[in-house]
């Protein structure tokens, strides 16, 4: 995102390298409208058949509130986990050479490629009280599948590639020189990481985490199998949308959809603003 805006401003200031700015901007606007804006507008228009009070009644129902809290809360936790461990994975894959590196690198993409329902069924089989991972966890007194923890597990699984794949190119561009310079100037390892490496990675890390978060908020297929789906406990907001549709309550379903869309958009926008702030400070 940062590179795109930089390229854009560079193009407008000097003579554009690629011709046809008007044509490509026109195409971009048309394409975005057809693919993104028109479906979203249809979604935004739907709940108003309920009126403002009906809309609020849907959103303020305790069950809807609980589902929204679960969806956004577990997506945030999963994104945070992916932010930390995704950084470690990306670091390892870029900085070290080891056997089967390409294979391990390819593994990172699997959550992208796997149909989400397959992932969900595999995860719930693994983490069920009698599953390979669920049984030892149950022995420790931890219930994973069919609890909110199960939701976090599924969302962490599907979010990992977003962080790793956004960080990798930035990490390989970073080079070792800056770190070596910091070391010769007497910085400790921690100082080098916190003051040299992390600031350079922060924008990409934030973008990756935001993408993982946005994907996790709306995730349905991989979650419903492992969540348990108990109202007020482990029922995610997208499932509640499906339940409302099954009850022919299209407007109520759209109302929840609008709230999720608005909240996700606000969060991603805030993260982008924060990222821009970091860019400017650098």
């Amino acid at each position, binding site marked *: 995102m940062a590179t795109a805006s930089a390229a854009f401003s560079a193009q407008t200031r000097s003579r554009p390298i690629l011709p046809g700015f008007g044509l490509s901007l026109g195409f971009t606007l048309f394409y975005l409208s057809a693919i993104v804006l028109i479906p979203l507008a249809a979604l935004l228009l739907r709940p108003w058949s309920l009126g403002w009070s009906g809309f609020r009644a849907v959103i303020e129902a*305790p069950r809807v509130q609980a589902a929204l809290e679960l969806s956004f809360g577990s997506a945030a936790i999963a994104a945070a986990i992916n932010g930390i461990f995704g950084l470690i994975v990306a670091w390892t894959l870029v900085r070290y050479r080891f056997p089967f590196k390409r294979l391990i690198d390819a593994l990172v993409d699997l959550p992208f490629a796997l149909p989400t329902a397959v992932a969900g*069924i595999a995860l719930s089989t693994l983490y069920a009280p009698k599953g390979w991972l669920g049984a030892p966890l149950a022995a420790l007194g931890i219930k994973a599948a069919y609890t909110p923890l199960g939701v976090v597990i599924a969302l962490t699984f599907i979010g990992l590639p977003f962080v790793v794949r956004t960080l990798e190119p930035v990490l390989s561009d970073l080079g070792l020189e800056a770190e070596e310079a910091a070391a010769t100037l007497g910085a400790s390892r921690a100082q080098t990481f916190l003051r040299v490496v992390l600031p350079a990675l922060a924008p990409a890390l934030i973008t990756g985490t935001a993408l993982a978060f946005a994907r996790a908020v709306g995730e349905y297929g991989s979650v419903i199998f492992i969540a*348990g789906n108990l109202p007020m406990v482990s029922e995610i907001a997208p499932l509640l949308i499906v339940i409302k549709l099954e*009850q022919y309550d299209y407007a109520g379903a759209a109302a929840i959809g609008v709230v999720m869309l608005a909240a996700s958009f606000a969060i991603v926008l805030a993260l982008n603003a924060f990222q821009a702030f970091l860019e400017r400070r650098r």
Partner: protein
Amino acid sequence: MKLITLAGAAVLSVATGAQAASQTLLNVSYDPTRELYRQVNAAFAAQWKAKTGDDLTINQSHGGSGAQSRAVIDGLEADVVTLALAYDINAIAEKAKLLPTDWQKRLPEASTPYTSTIVFLVRKGNPRHIHDWADLVKPGVQVITPNPKTSGGARWSYLAAWAYAEKKPGGSKAAARDYVKQLYAHVPVLDAGARGSTNTFAQRGIGDVLLDWENEARLALKEAGGDQYEVVYPSVSILAEPPVALVDANADKHGTRKVAEAYLQFLYTKEAQDIEARNFYRPRDPQVAAAHAADFPKIPLYTLSEVFGDWQKAQATHFADGGVFDQIYQPGK
């Protein structure tokens, strides 16, 4: 139009029957009827060919009853619908006006050629000693049933549990509400549909008892070879009535009204009733029922109208937003 129907069926990736059909029917049905209609369709197509000389292809589409009904409302061009409960066909009549609202009067037995009920599937040897509804709420027992808001079968299960608690000696509506609340406190996973619950119970080994359609439970028992599960018949249950209907607007558009009507009437014939009984659906025909009497234990079955009036009332009271099912999950209520 035929092309679109075929495309629709292909998208759902469920198509059976012979090629090069001169006529095509789309039967939109609910989840457990796959095996049943595969056999019924073959029998009817053969009979139709013998009678008229026309080749007939019957495409099937299966899914959760509510989702299927919504698909028809949103434009899936079903010639006939065979769903889990009348409420879902009422929705098609009311919201999309594709068939008259009095559709249930058009065929015998309130348009329900076969019935079923709700039974318990337990693990072999019945280690938890589950014999009746009261045993489901004993300490430590885990009950598997789908979410009644999304699953037709689960709605019948919920209503069966309610009917038991309301109609037992000393029972009342308040007692029934209490019992249902206790029952769902014993449910660790609410899957969206019946097949999901069967997987949770069978594949993942969760729970001590699965509340299920009689036909699904018996099919599971047959496929597992009888050494993993047992079917337990409670002292009372509910008469589950999955109805069938012609979707007039679609059939007229496709010019299939005659064959579609014959298809639905065929479901009441002795030949079809026998297929239904062999797939563990309770036949309506007294002679076929008598021939299969050993397969279907006689337990008292409450009807929906005895206990709940009709589907519109049951839906509004129990399953609509803010209804009893929502209330029992609200803390402090």
